[in-house]
């Protein structure tokens, strides 16, 4: 199918984008890479009357270290971030997750902020944003607000974004040098849609886990942190007994969805397996399959 007709605005700067979004309100959608939006438009599941492209706003294509944060603007493409030295150095968890977002062809154009704003229930980046305690920088003509990712995602395909507002940037927590992390996922095809995944980071002090962040996708209607699992591991050595307990705690805490790809029990089981593997490996990648 072809998309329904729409009008296209292509402002040269953020001020122009925000003005266009304010003028068109609910009728407008932001066009960045379009890799989430255009499929829905082609299927006519969405029919925005107005698209406001940010692709001419060079000011939104930045990746910067600011204090303890790594901040990526709305026009940073997924494939660019994947190989960016600052991402590799300060957010290895993000670098490990990015290849899983989809084929190279969509990662070449799709943006990080676009995927976050789209909030697909099985998307990778919301889980990464939760594990890296990201802040979402939301801009509108009325000004800017900054919200933790945990408050940004509401439900499947639903965020707190208001009409006229866009994700201007995402600010991930930079990972400490002695931190370990892993992103693991299973899907019906590698780099296709995910069935379940985990984004995990932790730090050991004197052989005991001093800090842990555990986020999952396919564990509920949207990506979520799993505080019960984090609590089960902190203060303990990462031995087989502790890993078995954290897996139990995680499986008890999640409420995975059932769909054509997998049922809730399968996902609950798989999430536990992935979490255990992640805690055993912690090199950011599948042991066998670094790209």
């Amino acid at each position: 199918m072809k998309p329904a007709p729409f009008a296209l605005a292509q402002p040269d700067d953020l001020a122009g984008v925000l003005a266009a979004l304010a003028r068109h309100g609910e009728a407008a959608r932001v066009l960045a890479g379009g890799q989430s939006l255009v499929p829905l438009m082609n299927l006519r599941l969405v029919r925005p009357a107005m698209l406001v492209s940010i692709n001419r706003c060079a000011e939104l294509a930045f990746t910067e270290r600011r204090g303890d944060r790594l901040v990526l603007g709305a026009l940073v493409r997924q494939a660019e971030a994947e190989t960016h030295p600052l991402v590799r150095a300060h957010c290895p968890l993000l670098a490990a997750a990015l290849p899983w977002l989809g084929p190279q062809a969509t990662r070449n154009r799709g943006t990080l902020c676009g995927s976050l704003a789209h909030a697909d229930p099985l998307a990778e980046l919301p889980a990464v944003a939760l594990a890296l305690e990201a802040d979402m920088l939301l801009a509108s003509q009325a000004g800017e607000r900054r919200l933790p990712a945990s408050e940004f995602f509401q439900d499947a395909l639903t965020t707190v974004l208001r009409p006229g507002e866009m994700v201007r940037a995402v600010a991930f927590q930079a990972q400490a040098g002695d931190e370990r992390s892993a992103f693991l996922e299973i899907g019906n095809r590698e780099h296709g849609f995910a069935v379940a995944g985990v984004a995990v980071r932790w730090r050991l002090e004197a052989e005991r886990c001093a800090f842990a962040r555990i986020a999952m996708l396919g564990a509920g209607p949207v990506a979520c942190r799993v505080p019960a699992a984090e609590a089960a591991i902190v203060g303990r050595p990462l031995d087989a007994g502790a890993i078995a307990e954290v897996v139990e705690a995680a499986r008890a805490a999640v409420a995975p969805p059932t769909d054509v790809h997998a049922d809730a029990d399968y996902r609950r089981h798989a999430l536990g397996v992935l979490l255990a593997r992640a805690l055993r490996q912690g090199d950011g990648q599948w042991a066998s399959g670094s790209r």
Partner: protein
Amino acid sequence: MGERIEVTLTVNQRKRRAQVEPRLLLVDYLRHELGLKGTHVGCEQGACGACTVLLDGRTARSCLHFVAALDGAQIRTVEDVAPSPELLHPIQQAFHRQHALQCGYCTPGFVMTTLELLAGNPDPSQTAIRRALTNNLCRCTGYANIVKAVTAAGKALREGSQA
């Protein structure tokens, strides 16, 4: 609405100027307005890879891009891969020799995907090849010969010989 947008873009090294409706997809522009029918349409939702082209040197799904937003872009399609009408590119040669196509519907997308893969990684492992191709769908071949063809093409390109 109904308003047309003027764009200038380069397709297969030729400058093209067009007045387009905002909703015109790149794949439809290539096929219907330029007659470049080598780029195929499968799913129209980014899933099958039949419509893969190079956009500013990197693979892109041409069913997921609006021409109106591509002013100044460089597009390369499968028509611009062979060095001449009589000769095949080593990647095409390898697909031919290794029986990596049957109906050929998916082939242009695989060729464009392989171009990008081998440009970035001239000697990819079997895993790297399978990963690069995993989101291009072929309903005929069962993929084994496609992987063989990409392996052979990599070798041919490295050695500067025919696949």
